[in-house]
């Protein structure tokens, strides 16, 4: 890809794009448990943690540690900023696929 300068580097990495894509299914303020997300993405816990930390540093996801009864539980949600970045990333991909329609593509 020659035009990658305009694609968000944080979610340009395949693994982080997968994480953000999955999280984009959740409605605003909904969170998913870490194990559910991990299983759904078929990643190792360590690998997912690394990518979540990078996304957290960019302000794209929020990771909450809490307790369900006595067992610790970790929940993940996409922030408003993360959702915006994801939507812009998708728009950029579509524009790359179909450059002529770039101007009309106002969602």
């Amino acid at each position, binding site marked *: 890809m020659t035009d990658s300068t305009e694609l968000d580097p944080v979610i340009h*990495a*395949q693994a982080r*794009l997968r994480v953000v894509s*999955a999280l984009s*299914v959740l409605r605003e303020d909904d969170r998913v448990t870490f194990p559910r997300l991990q299983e*759904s993405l078929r990643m190792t816990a360590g690998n997912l943690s690394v990518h979540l930390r990078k996304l957290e540093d960019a302000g794209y996801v929020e990771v909450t540690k809490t307790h369900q009864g006595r067992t610790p539980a970790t929940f993940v949600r996409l922030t408003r900023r993360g959702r915006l970045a994801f939507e812009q990333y998708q728009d950029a991909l579509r524009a790359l696929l179909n450059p002529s329609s770039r101007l009309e593509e106002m969602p």
Partner: protein
Amino acid sequence: MEPNDDDEPLGNPADSLALIARERANLVRDIVPDPRWMYWPWGIAWLFGFGLLFLRFGPGGRVFVDLPAWLPLTLLSLSFMAAGAVTGAVGARSALQTRGPSSRQGLMYGLTWGISFFGMSLLFAQFGDAMPDDKLSLLWAGGLVALAGALHMAGAAIWNDRPLFVLGAWTSVTNVAGIVAGPGWHSLIVAIAGGGGMLLFGLLGWLRRR
């Protein structure tokens, strides 16, 4: 850190868009209950329960299968409870994977079914001796089906879900048609049109998300 394979971007935008669609579908499949598990237990319970009711209390007092008079309503209640337990467990399992407004909505909706069915059943149970068996069956069946139709329509309003509204409206219309047709006919109409409607609804919902 050493870059690894999945730190690499995909080469082509079409592949990236396909990846996005795939991961979205995966998580939906994992956190939204399978429509088959949510609707087929009810469809089967209605076919079975109302079917028995029809066989024992047919139109015009006809008895197609001579079961003890108390048996059809008892089995109908038990099959409703079984269906409620299955959908409650499946729904709760999904709700536990997430936290936030959506899972709270789901919990409140599930409790609404349980609480309102309990209240209505308790009311109807007071009339056991007050009317003939065929009228009593119509009261139970018509009341519970009306409630189910109303709750489906309310669910549709909560989630802005058109197909669910169609299911609720269809259930309500078949219930009214059955009530007008009278005892016996009501059971047959609700078993086939109502129960069949839920089986079909579960199937269509499953096909849509595959």
